[in-house]
C-alpha cells in the first residue's frame, strides 16, 4: 500500500469518488488547473474534466448555495472553501438551507453535499487563515461535522461523507496535511461516521481530542506513560452527531478526562463533551473534566501563534492535575 500524507489521502478519496459516481462534482476557488491552494484537487481537473472539477468565481455564499442547489437535484457536490476564515459567508446557506432541506420538504428533497475546508493554526499562515470554528457548525441541527486526524481517517471519512445522504461539513486540520505519511489502501473503503475512534487504550485517564491536536494529545499520552500513567486517547472524528457512548465508556473506566482542542475555550465543542460527562457520567468522575483549549483571544498573527496553541506541556499538566485531584 502506498504511503500517503493527509492531503494526498484527501486527493485520492476525491479521485475515487469522481471515478465511482458521475453525480460527484467538485467545485471551489482554484480547484481546477491549480489543483487547490493546498493541492487537494491536484490532477483532478485534468483527469475528470472542467465540468466535474469546476473553478468558481470568488464567492463563498455562491459556492455553498450552488452546492445546495445541485444536491437538491440529486448530484453530490463536494465544495471547497479555501480556508475556514472565509467560510462565514457560507453559514447562511448551510444553516438555513443545507441542514434543513430534507426536513423542510419532509424528505422530498435532500442535500447530499460535502463542504470541505482546511482549518486550524500552527503553520505561520497570514491573518484569518488559522482559526478553528468547528463548534459553530456542531451546533446546527441536521448537519454532520467530521474532522479527520490522519491520512487513513481522511480517506475513509471523506468517502463516507461523500456517500452520506445528508450534508457534511468536513474540516481538514491543515497543520497535519503533510506531517506524517501512512499506508492508505485506495480501494474506496469508507470509515463509519457517528463513531469515535479509540487511538490508544489506557486505564488512568481519558484524553479526548480531534484533528491536529491529536498529535499533541498522543505525544502527551506517550510522555505520561513514562511516569506510569496509562492514558486512553479518543479521536472524536465525527463531532456531530456525537458518539458519546465511546467517551462515556472510557471515562467510566478511567474516571478522569481531559479534552483538548485548539479552538477558543468558551463555547468550544469541548464544552459539550464536558457537559455530557457531567450529565451522564458524574458518578464515575473522580476529578473535574479539564479542557485544554485555545485562549478566548483572537488568534494572534504568526509571531505569537505558538503561545496561543495548546501544547503538549499543557496536556501533561492537565493530566497530572486530574490525577492528583481529591
Amino acid at each position: 500500500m502506498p504511503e500517503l500524507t493527509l492531503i494526498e489521502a484527501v486527493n485520492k478519496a476525491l479521485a475515487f469518488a469522481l471515478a465511482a459516481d458521475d453525480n460527484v462534482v467538485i467545485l471551489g476557488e482554484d480547484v481546477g488547473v491549480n489543483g487547490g491552494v493546498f493541492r487537494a484537487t491536484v490532477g483532478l481537473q485534468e483527469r475528470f474534466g472542467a465540468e466535474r472539477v469546476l473553478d468558481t468565481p470568488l464567492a463563498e455564499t455562491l459556492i455553498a448555495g450552488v452546492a445546495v442547489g445541485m444536491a437538491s437535484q440529486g448530484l453530490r457536490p463536494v465544495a471547497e472553501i479555501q480556508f475556514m476564515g472565509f467560510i462565514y459567508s457560507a453559514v447562511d446557506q448551510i444553516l438555513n438551507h443545507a441542514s434543513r432541506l430534507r426536513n423542510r420538504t419532509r424528505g422530498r428533497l435532500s442535500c447530499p453535499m460535502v463542504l470541505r475546508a482546511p482549518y486550524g493554526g500552527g503553520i505561520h499562515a497570514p491573518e484569518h487563515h488559522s482559526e478553528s470554528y468547528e463548534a459553530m457548525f456542531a451546533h446546527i441541527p441536521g448537519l454532520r461535522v467530521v474532522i479527520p486526524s490522519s491520512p487513513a481517517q481522511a480517506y475513509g471519512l471523506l468517502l463516507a461523507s461523500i456517500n452520506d445522504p445528508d450534508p457534511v461539513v468536513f474540516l481538514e486540520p491543515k497543520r497535519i496535511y503533510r506531517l506524517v505519511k501512512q499506508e492508505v489502501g485506495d480501494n474506496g473503503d469508507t470509515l463509519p461516521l457517528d463513531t469515535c475512534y479509540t487511538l490508544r487504550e489506557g486505564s488512568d485517564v481519558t484524553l479526548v481530542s480531534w484533528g491536529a491536536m491529536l498529535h499533541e494529545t498522543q505525544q502527551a499520552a506517550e510522555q505520561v506513560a513514562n511516569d506510569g500513567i496509562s492514558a486512553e486517547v479518543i479521536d472524536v472524528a465525527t463531532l456531530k452527531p456525537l458518539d458519546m457512548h465511546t467517551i462515556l465508556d472510557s471515562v467510566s473506566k478511567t474516571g478522569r478526562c481531559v479534552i483538548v482542542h485548539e479552538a477558543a475555550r468558551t463555547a468550544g465543542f469541548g464544552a459539550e463533551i464536558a457537559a455530557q460527562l457531567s450529565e451522564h457520567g458524574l458518578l464515575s468522575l473522580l476529578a473535574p473534566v479539564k479542557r485544554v483549549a485555545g485562549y478566548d483571544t483572537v488568534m494572534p498573527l504568526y509571531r505569537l501563534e505558538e503561545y496561543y496553541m495548546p501544547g503538549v506541556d499543557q496536556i501533561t499538566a492537565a493530566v497530572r492535575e486530574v490525577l492528583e485531584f481529591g
Partner: protein
Amino acid sequence: MPAPKRNKEDKRKTVASFDIRYTRYIDKDGQVVGVLPDVAKDPDALISLYRAMVLNRVFDQKAIALQRTGNLGTYASSLGQEAVFVAVGAVMKQQDVLVPYYREYGAQLLRGVTMTELLLYWGGDERGMDYAGPREDLPICVPIASQIPQAAGVALAMKYRREPRVAVTMFGDGATSKGDFYESANAAGAWNLPLVFVVNNNQWAISVSVAEQTHCKTLAQKAIAAGFPGEQVDGNDIIAVFDRFSAAMEKARNGGGPTLIEAITYRLSDHTTADDASRYRGDEDLSANWENEPLKRLRQYLIGMECWDQRREEQLRKSCELEVEQAIHAYLDTPPAAPESMFEYLYANLPAALTSQREDLSRRLKDRCQS
C-alpha cells in the same frame, strides 16, 4: 423612442454600451399599444391565463380571511402581481424547475402545487413543502435572495446533465440588494447557465421603496454587472410578461444563457398580514396603482376581443371560490403531524445520538395525554 442622449463632449473611447428595453402590449385600459405576439391572439390561451389569475386572487382573499380569523399564520399576498406569477407558471414546462421566493402562488399552482399545500405551509406545517406536484421544485424561501444561489446550482445540474431544462428563480425588488443575488447572477453569466431571473418589482420591500433600495433607474440593468441581458416588462400586462419570459426561456433552453426580467408591478396589499402599509405609504399611491392592476387589464382586453362577459366572469369567480373552499376544507381537516415528525426528516436515518431526544419527546407527549 430613441436612445437617451449620450455625452458628445466626452472624447474618451467607448469600450462597452448597453441599453435597457421595456415591453408593454396592453395598456391599463386594455388597449393595444404594440405589435401583438401570437399568444395575444389566442382567446383560449388568454382565458386560461385569466382563470389562473382569478384563482390566484381568490386564493389570496380567502387566505387573508383565514389569517384574520386565526386559522392561518402570517401570510404574504400576491395582490396586484398575479400576471407575473401566472405567466411564469404558464410558460414553464413541467421538467423545468421553479426556485421561488414566497408569494408566487400563481406560478406554483400552475405547476401543480396544491392550494392545500400552500395553506399548510403558511399554517405552520412542513408537509406544505412536500409538493405532490413538481417534485424537484424548491419550496417557498423566506430568507431573502438565499434561493438564488440554489437556483444557480439547479441550473448547473441541468447543464451538467445536458438536459434541455431551465431553472427559473423569482424574487422581489428588495432581494436585488443582497449579495446572494449578485453572486449568483455573475456566476450564471460566467457559466452561461440555463437560468431565468424574474424580479417582481412591486415597488416596496416592506416599507422601503425601490428608490431607497437603489439608485438604479431600472432593476433590469443589474444584469449588466453579471454580463448578460436584462430587460423590463410591464408586469401588469400578462401578454408582455408571457412574451418576454417565453423568449428568455427559449433562449436559455437553447444554450443561450441567462436573462433577467424585471416585471414592474405594485404590491397592492400589505407586505404580509403582519404588516400595516398605511404606516409608510400614502393612499394616493395605492389607489393610483389600482388603476393598473392586471386582472382588470386582461379582462378589458378579453371583452374587447368579445370573448368575455359578465356571465362568464361570474361563473369563473364561483368556480374559483369553490375550488379554494375545497382546498381550505382539506387544509382545515388536516390533523397536525405527529410531533415526533420533527425527528423523522432531520437525517435520512436518525443518528443514535438523537434517539434519546426523540424518546424524551414521546415521553412528554404521553405525560400530557395522561394529565
